[in-house]
């Protein structure tokens, strides 16, 4: 084991890259040019063999670790796992975080000006798929001079990107860390996403997605979408332990304002999210989740699909994750076993449901750290 002393990466600075080679998207539309915002931590070695791509999930961004000089509280979404001496050790690896196409943190997306109209894309921004993100990430790798990633790492929707990398660019990824993911969504999962989308689409302030020009924000819809999502990211037990039936004022008040503590928590989470995230991006991200199904290319046979992969895998799931349950991770593992690929699978005991992949858990982090330490550079 290496040193256990860890620290924050400190101040980080986002960067921007412009790509002028057109990108044909899965939906058939071509993006003539686009920009990606990204951050890097650590140093790329001379052999360029120590690069790790960290893919973000639904609400994440390129800001994976550290904080901004002008925003001490704006800490990266996976700061507990990325930094000097942390599981994704910036003393050893060169780590890249990128905001995906269609995002709302600076990369080309619905709020960007559409060159064809001179107005924001809004709802006209093409529906992007996981494979489109992976193609864009590959161009970013070219731009950074990285032939092959030492590893691509992601949780949830991020794990789907790592999986897609192994199929689409098998020669450009040596290890895939697929965490709290699934090879495709279930009908129940798509159903949750559709309710979230309906909340946004039916908000009178949505204006068919062209709310930027109207000066409105479909806050209510986005807030509801996040509240629903948040319920599904937690476990029943975690909610019971944290909130139970606690009453804010200690007794029933017989009104529709906040009475139970869980209501207070969910409304707060919804409000916070609605203030910081873009509704069009939320719609796009949930669609990308719904569309993800690489086995479609082989008539639903995931094992046949994974025959293209050469990477070594670490697959991780969490016992209380019911949105992307351990059984879904085991589907991925089985497809890898069928192809005699190198794979390890860990099922982490955790109370935090789907959100566990973001939590600082000693055993989970030890698994990540140990796997990454074995990667030859």
């Amino acid at each position, binding site marked *: 084991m290496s040193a256990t002393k860890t620290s924050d990466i400190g101040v980080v600075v986002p960067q921007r890259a412009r790509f002028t080679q057109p990108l044909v998207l899965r939906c058939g539309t071509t993006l003539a040019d686009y920009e990606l915002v990204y951050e890097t931590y650590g140093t790329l070695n001379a052999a360029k063999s120590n690069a790790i791509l960290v893919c973000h999930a639904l609400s994440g961004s390129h800001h994976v670790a550290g904080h901004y000089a002008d925003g001490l509280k704006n800490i990266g979404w996976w700061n507990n796992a990325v930094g000097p001496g942390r599981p994704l050790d910036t003393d050893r690896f060169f780590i890249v975080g990128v905001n995906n196409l269609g995002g709302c943190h600076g990369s080309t997306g619905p709020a960007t000006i559409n060159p064809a109209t001179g107005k924001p894309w809004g709802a006209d921004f093409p529906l992007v798929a996981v494979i489109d993100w992976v193609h864009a990430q590959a161009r970013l790798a070219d731009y950074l001079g990285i032939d092959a990633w030492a590893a691509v790492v992601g949780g949830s929707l991020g794990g789907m990107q790592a999986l897609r990398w192994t199929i689409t660019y098998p020669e450009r990824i040596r290890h895939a860390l697929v965490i709290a993911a699934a090879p495709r969504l279930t009908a129940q999962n798509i159903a949750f996403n559709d309710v979230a989308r309906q909340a946004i689409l039916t908000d009178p302030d949505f204006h068919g997605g062209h709310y930027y020009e109207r000066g409105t924000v479909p806050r209510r819809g986005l807030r509801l979408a996040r509240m629903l999502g948040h319920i599904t990211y937690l476990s029943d037990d975690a909610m019971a332990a944290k909130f139970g039936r606690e009453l804010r004022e200690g007794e029933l008040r017989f009104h529709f304002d906040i009475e139970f503590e869980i209501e207070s928590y969910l409304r707060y989470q919804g409000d916070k999210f609605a203030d910081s995230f873009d509704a069009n991006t939320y719609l796009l991200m949930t669609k990308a989740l719904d569309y993800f199904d690489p086995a479609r290319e082989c008539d639903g046979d995931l094992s046949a699909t994974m025959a293209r992969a050469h990477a070594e895998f670490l697959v991780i799931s969490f016992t209380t994750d019911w949105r992307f349950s351990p059984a879904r991770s*085991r589907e991925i593992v089985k497809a890898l076993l*069928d192809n005699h690929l*190198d*794979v*390890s699978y*860990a099922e982490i*005991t955790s109370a935090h449901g789907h959100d566990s992949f973001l939590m600082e858990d000693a*055993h989970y982090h030890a698994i990540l750290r*140990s796997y990454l*330490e074995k990667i030859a550079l």
Partner: protein
Amino acid sequence: MNVPLPSRADFAAIAGWVRPGTRILDLGCGDGTLLNYLVAHRKASGYGVEINPGDVLTCIQRGINVIQGDIERGLSDFTDGSFDYVILSQTLQAVKNSEYVVKEMLRVGRQGIVTFPNFGYWYNRLQVMFGRMPVSHNLPYNWYDTPNIHLCTIADFEKFCANHNVRILERIVIRNGSTVSLLPNLFGSLAVYRFERG
């Protein structure tokens, strides 16, 4: 890689049987000691299956492929005949459905290898004769904390194989690290078998 010969007597026997370059599934692989050795010295490939999270972590630290899972729930993630050897070392006596586990071993592997403490070892018999459950080097537990629920003797296992269409290919019986050839069911404390479908 400098991987020492496994210290457990049954590991040495298994390592002697495994042909180079073969595919192995090690059920209940623990900290990966045996698999690590077979990968390093027999150029074997494959996976360990282990339920204990601490052991899973140790396997990952060693760079061994390990699948966290419960072998009692079957080996449904593994396709028929996908391994040369399926190994179950000192675990057969601790599983609830030994019959099912052996059947699954021979479904996913061409050959099975099991090791188990021989309940017929004279020292165990002696303790039972004096009215006590045996505690010994290979059976280190008390009756109230033992994970061993399906203990058997060498004679029992061989009858089981005969009744379940399992052909024994090779047997090594050990006591204190040495091979026992005289009255093995009496003088051997640990049995190691290699077998296939009959």
